[in-house]
């Protein structure tokens, strides 16, 4: 007993010294990214928050402090509210469709069907494209490729989903899900493959059928994957920009203008930089609250091995 006590302090001192020497190295290695992070993220963030309390137009050499005027204005801005509604709907549908579809494909392709590598590649391929390209592909698809089917079979189905405010959301959801399902499928696949096979065997021995296995083993074991996917899809959808710019440009009218797009247009087209900064701050707070709630709710449901 006494030997162990006396030997401990020396080992701790020794360890501390070594850790300190290492620390300098690690710190130095971390320094460049840290500097970039501070210069590219933290400083602009603080500047943005400061600007949101001024009347700066983005170009002019003078700035005046105007307090909370911009923030009060946001809640009277119909366009901001409309764009927020659009972004919200886009996020809700994406989260549901992508989660369910990715989960479905993952379970399908984790089974022993034929040519599963082929299907995995096909479903994953669109992930590699840039959203700009996806926007253009689907513009062509709705605009010229699908309507030519109409001509071929003498039909009159309205394929151009991007040219009416009533269908533009559906059109964008199709394009966005087509691109991203493969990515989230991959995460679910990795999750599925990490589930120990002996749990399933135990369930079989206990007389459980495939449905019971799915509900009581697969879904709880995939808890962490569900958390990652849900948060990833939701935040990704809230930040949607390139896809819309490359496909509808926010139109027809303002019907597919996302919040980020509205902020961008306000800052760089209408030259209301400080007002756009205020909107960004509000949007950031919403995102943070949202991510926090999601994390709290989803973490509760996860099981640990």
């Amino acid at each position, binding site marked *: 007993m006494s030997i162990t006590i006396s030997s401990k302090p020396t080992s701790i001192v020794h360890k501390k010294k070594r850790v300190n020497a290492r620390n300098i190295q690690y710190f130095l290695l971390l320094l*460049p990214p840290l500097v970039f992070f501070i210069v590219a993220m933290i400083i602009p963030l603080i500047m943005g928050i400061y600007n949101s309390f001024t009347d700066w137009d983005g170009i002019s050499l003078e700035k005046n402090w105007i307090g909370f005027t911009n923030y009060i204005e946001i809640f009277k801005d119909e366009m901001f509210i409309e764009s927020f509604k659009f972004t919200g709907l886009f996020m809700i549908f994406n989260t549901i469709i992508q989660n369910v579809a990715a989960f479905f494909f993952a379970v399908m392709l984790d089974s022993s069907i034929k040519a599963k590598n082929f299907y995995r590649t096909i479903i994953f391929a669109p992930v590699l494209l840039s959203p700009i390209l996806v926007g253009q592909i689907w513009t062509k698809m709705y605009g010229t490729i699908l309507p030519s089917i109409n001509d071929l079979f003498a039909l009159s189905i309205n394929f151009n989903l991007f040219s009416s405010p009533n269908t533009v959301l559906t059109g964008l959801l199709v394009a966005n899900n087509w691109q991203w399902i493969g990515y989230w499928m991959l995460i679910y696949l990795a999750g599925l493959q990490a589930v120990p096979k002996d749990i399933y065997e135990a369930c079989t021995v206990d007389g459980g059928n495939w449905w019971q296995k799915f509900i009581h083993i697969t879904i709880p074991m995939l808890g962490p994957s569900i958390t990652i996917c849900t948060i990833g899809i939701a935040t990704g959808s809230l930040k949607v920009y390139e896809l819309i710019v490359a496909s509808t440009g926010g139109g027809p009218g303002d019907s597919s203008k996302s919040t980020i797009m509205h902020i961008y247009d306000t800052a760089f087209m209408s030259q209301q930089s400080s007002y756009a900064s205020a909107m960004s701050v509000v949007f950031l707070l919403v995102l943070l609250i949202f991510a926090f709630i999601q994390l709290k709710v989803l973490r509760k449901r996860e099981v640990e091995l």
Partner: protein
Amino acid sequence: MKKGFKWVHLIMIISIIGSLLVACSSSSSGTSKDGKVTLKVLDWNNTNTKETEKMIKETVEKELPNVKLEFEYINWDTDFSSVMQTRIAGKQLPDIIMIKGGDHPKYTEHLMDLSTEEFMSEFPEDIRKALQIDGKDYAVPYTSNFQGVFYNKRIFTENNIEIPKTWDELMAVAETLKSKGITPFTSHFKDYQIGNSFNQFATIEVYSKNPTWGNDLQKGKVSFATSPEFKTVFEHFEEIYKYSNKDPFGLDFTGAAEMFAKEETAMWIIGTWSTAQVLKNNPDLEIGFFPTPATDEKNTKIIMQPDHTFSASATTKHPKEVKQVLEVFATNKDMAKKYIDIVQTESLIPDVVSAVQAPYVEDINNYKSIGAADANLGNVQIPWPYQEQSGNYIAEWLLGNKTLDKALKASDDFKSKVKFSTK
């Protein structure tokens, strides 16, 4: 031994960080080793850019052997203001900037005052005046575009259609064409056309009566909702929409040019920048031109806009060379002529006339001699984002998501959400 190894580690890490930081300091425009000065040019022209760039570089570098030009291209209607804003904020404004006539008031603080330069006296007083701000010159005028109705000559002759002089006559023409199974108008409401036509219609219907309407709007003296003239402007869109190709909200400029070139439609309300794209698709197309008809015949005028102009950054490191290049732009008539022939537009340099022989060029010259309306009258007072946003409200009205009165009211409400360039 072990200690030495640690030092090697540290030195390696420091050298990595050092090299990263060195890589950060990129070289911007400046003097290179061979004594040549590289000047950056921001250019938004999008017609035959490869040819114009080659031609300008050759001419300028021949006249000024110590200068090298470096071009950067952007899209005017989607990117120009954001690029300018970020460059100004980052203090990285290119040395020479192509600015669209009408955009200057927004950027005067950051542009070089050219009023005292000798080469500015080359230009007639009225052209200089059109671009001056508080009596000072900030740009070398270069080209102008013309806006109005481009039409298919063959369709018009075959159907014995006379050129309409009023809006009602235009609608009668549209009705005749429609009854014969021909689509009257090419409409590409997916991109900027509503915004552009907005200014065209407003120029002939509103600003012809009240040239300071935009300033009055800013001061609260007039409004969209209470202006019968602006109601007419909005209603014009409803009529155009009625006589347009299928699905105009799904069609963009390129698609529209193709449609007009393939003779699927008879007319296109646009500007001279479209003809090069149309003729690329169908070089044999006979395009005619007439001014956009106003409700009242006396306001039916060809609409002219000073278009490409060249300005200099106020903070350039090479003011002498920049001024020399601008002088070449202002005085080299040979280059100006080549430029308008490639871009297929009209020059603002005195005595430079286009060699392009096309029916629409003749038509434009005829109408121009009668007198033109200046598009920038409206563009300066109601900035482009405002025009575009009003265009969005018009779109929502046409698609049944707003009433006409709501669309007009929404245009009024947008007033506080946009920065005006005039005071």
